[in-house]
């Protein structure tokens, strides 16, 4: 057996990160799509309409909603509008599908374009490009309020999903397809690592072996990769085993405890004023006694989409590259791949596919570049789909956060509110932004993703809300709701303690302090819809509420029963949701249900283990997600009083986990301060 090594001179000195002066990473562009762009989204030919969907479809059913908008505005049956997912060659650039923006920002221009088309067809114009002034929203048919709710229409792709027809990127099978994988060290890609030795001959002897690919561009952040190409997917596993790669990795002593030390908010507070301000009104007195003083710690969490990310790259004619992706941003994939491969952007044609769950995680370029580079190396179509272990080790995650929340009350009302927290980057994700550049973004921009949801919806004279950002040895980035999930959990836990301290009902206490009448209405609706609270030993009800991105409102009521061994059984989750005008209420309801389940996961299970310089959770066994038997009945109240449409994909997550924690408090008297909830701390001794 021959083990091949390669020159290691100097690698022992590799420390730290990319240096200033290195090439800037490719940043996602964020154009605002308007009426002019939307004219390219809707087409008419011989009585058939085609909607070139300007958004990624990942289960939020934006295809179904925008088809509805188009059909209503055109005055045709939705079934006569065919939805296609356009390639990057077919439409103008659109920004990433993130932040629950798709109805809010894309429905209006689409409806305007459809109105123009409708008027043209009425005039008998059936040829050529259209130009006309956009109609104002008030005169569009798509946004008229309907006196009667209508039966939901079939989901776009619904038939394909239930019959198993090809839809997702891994379902793409161009002729001559090969299978690829890029091996990396088991440590975090944030830490320098490279392959130093492997069994070359053994690997080549595996049936189905096609190629080993050494290429500097196969680097993910600091992790150098070793590429494999094989004739079957199973051969990849056998080749990987035969290679038995020895890795040189920097671990730097990083594990769960070191991450906790890096984040410890009290350590940051002891060093001085936290650098990033969210609220600073009046004057919060540091010295006097507090009525509530709470420390809350929330761990890393994975997106855990059931579809591991995948890509297919195939050489096209004339030096072009066809790239199939399951991404929240097809255009960003085009930019990174074309730049890295030295191709004109127009020569990379990206085909977006339905995404098998994303939740913020499919916003970076990883597997897409791996597939493109392997395709370039073997000059044949290559499919790469990450293993589940790669998803955990090499993906980015919800950052852990450490919160200190303190409050003072006077005559039952909030007077002083202090919320200090430490977290890691979200919008300026470490998976895409090198450390040197983060030092600049920290200074000029902070991280609005980390701050999201920290400006609480309650009225009080004095506020002091600030945070610190810490780059961690594990990649962090956007996760459903960004900072609003963990911030909502921390804030609503503390507000609940304030209600207890004031001796008030938690709903009354919130209503007395809420500033936004829509949120108050939402909270009242959630409470009104709840059945009488269950009795019984160690049973309790909790509430929480919040507003997402100023446009959508959430309130959740949770009922729990805590067993003598501390196991928390959630017996009901109900919510009320107000995101203004609803295009397709049932798909909004589905988003609310999903967010309730995510809240259940945040409270009871979401966590990733970190050890030996990386994420050590490598399967759903060590990073569990909620299962069907964990679910209580979910009740959703949708409020639509005709306000402008907001977003629905992330709203309920701001309140769901906190409602559960508050129910546990009501049931046991114990305030949960570390998530996920450890049953041992709730066990009756």
């Amino acid at each position: 057996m021959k083990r091949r090594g390669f020159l290691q001179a100097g690698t022992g000195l590799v420390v730290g990160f990319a240096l200033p002066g290195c090439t800037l990473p490719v940043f996602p562009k964020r154009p605002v799509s308007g009426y002019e762009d939307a004219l390219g989204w809707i087409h008419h030919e011989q009585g058939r309409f085609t909607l070139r969907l300007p958004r990624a479809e990942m289960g939020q059913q934006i295809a179904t909603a925008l088809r509805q908008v188009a059909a209503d505005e055109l005055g045709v049956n939705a079934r006569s509008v065919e939805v296609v997912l356009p390639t990057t060659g077919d439409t103008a650039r659109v920004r990433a599908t993130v932040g629950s923006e798709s109805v809010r920002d894309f429905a209006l221009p689409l409806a305007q374009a459809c109105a123009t088309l409708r008027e043209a067809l009425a005039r008998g114009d059936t040829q050529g490009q259209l130009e006309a002034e956009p109609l104002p929203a008030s005169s569009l048919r798509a946004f008229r309020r309907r006196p009667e709710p209508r039966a939901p229409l079939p989901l776009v792709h619904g038939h394909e999903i239930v019959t198993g027809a090809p839809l997702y990127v891994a379902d793409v099978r161009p002729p001559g397809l090969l299978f690829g994988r890029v091996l990396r060290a088991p440590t975090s890609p944030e830490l320098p690592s490279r392959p130093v030795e492997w069994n070359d001959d053994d690997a080549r002897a595996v049936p189905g072996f096609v190629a080993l690919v050494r290429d500097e561009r196969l680097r993910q952040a600091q992790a150098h990769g070793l590429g494999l190409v094989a004739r079957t997917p199973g051969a990849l596993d056998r080749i990987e085993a035969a290679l038995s790669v020895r890795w040189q990795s920097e671990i730097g002593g990083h594990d769960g405890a070191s991450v906790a030390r890096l984040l410890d908010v009290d350590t940051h507070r002891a060093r001085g004023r936290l650098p990033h301000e969210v609220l600073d009104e009046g004057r919060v007195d540091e010295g006097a006694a507090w009525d509530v003083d709470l420390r809350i710690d929330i761990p890393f969490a994975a997106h855990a989409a059931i579809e591991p990310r995948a890509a297919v790259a195939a050489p096209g004619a004339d030096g072009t590259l066809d790239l199939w992706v399951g991404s929240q941003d097809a255009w960003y994939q085009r930019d990174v791949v074309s730049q890295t491969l030295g191709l004109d952007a127009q020569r990379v044609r990206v085909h977006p596919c339905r995404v098998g769950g994303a939740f913020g995680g499919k916003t970076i370029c990883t597997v897409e570049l791996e597939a493109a580079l392997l395709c370039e190396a073997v000059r044949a179509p290559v499919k790469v789909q990450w293993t589940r272990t790669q998803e955990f080790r090499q993906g980015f995650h919800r950052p852990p956060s450490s919160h200190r929340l303190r409050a003072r009350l006077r005559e039952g009302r909030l007077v002083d509110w202090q919320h200090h927290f430490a977290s890691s980057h979200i919008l300026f994700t470490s998976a895409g932004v090198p450390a040197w550049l983060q030092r600049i973004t920290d200074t000029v921009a902070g991280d609005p993703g980390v701050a999201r949801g920290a400006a609480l919806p309650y009225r009080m004279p004095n506020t002091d809300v600030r945070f610190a950002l810490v780059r961690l040895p594990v990649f962090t980035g956007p996760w459903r709701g960004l900072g609003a999930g963990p911030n909502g959990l921390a804030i609503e836990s503390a507000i609940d303690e304030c209600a207890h301290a004031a001796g008030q009902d938690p709903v009354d206490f919130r209503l007395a302090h809420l500033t936004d009448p829509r949120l108050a209405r939402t909270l009242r609706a959630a409470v009104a819809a709840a059945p009488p609270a269950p009795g019984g030993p160690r049973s309790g009800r909790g509430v929480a509420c919040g507003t997402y991105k100023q446009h959508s409102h959430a309130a959740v009521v949770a009922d729990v029963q805590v067993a003598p061994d501390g196991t928390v059984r959630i017996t009901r989750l109900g919510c009320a949701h107000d995101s203004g005008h609803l295009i397709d209420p049932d798909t909004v309801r589905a988003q609310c249900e999903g967010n309730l389940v995510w809240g259940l996961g945040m409270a009871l299970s979401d966590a990733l283990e970190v050890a030996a310089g990386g994420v050590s959770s490598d399967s759903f066994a060590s990073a569990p997600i909620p299962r069907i038997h964990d679910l209580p009945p979910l009740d959703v109240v949708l409020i639509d009083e005709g306000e402008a449409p907001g977003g629905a994909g992330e709203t309920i997550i701001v309140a769901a986990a906190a409602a559960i924690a508050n129910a546990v408090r009501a049931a046991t008297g114990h305030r949960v301060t570390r998530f996920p909830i450890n049953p041992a701390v709730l066990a009756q001794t």
Partner: protein
Amino acid sequence: MELDINGQRQAIAPAWRDERLLWVLREHLGLVGSKHGCGVGQCGACTVLVDGAPARSCLLPVSATAGRRITTVEGLASADKGLHPVQQAWLDERVPQCGYCQAGQIVAAAALLHEHPLPSDAQIDAALAGHLCRCGTQQRVRAAVHRAARALARGAQ
């Protein structure tokens, strides 16, 4: 080597005989309804029926399935009867969000209803406990299984 898939004999080329059933279905035969989710039998997205019982195709060596009756999600619907009642119930309840896990859930639900024509919630939960869905469709999955059970009961009368 030949497999019996959805009532059809399928020849398996030599290069694919050492593969797991999932890869043979998806990449050799083009039956892409069964999905790769975890590769170690924990998520259920790859579930198919082998002699009528749910099995994780990501774990099954294809050689172990020769001579056995394999049913995938593509084989549930029939040309004369249309969609299987479970598939129709899934559409009627608008179960799918992203949809990636749903084929495995549908196949497992069809097997459950074969064994328990009118399952309780507890039986549904037990049968589908190994099927992960990150989108949070579980409540609709339960509703769809009950709806399909009612449809099957009506059809049997």
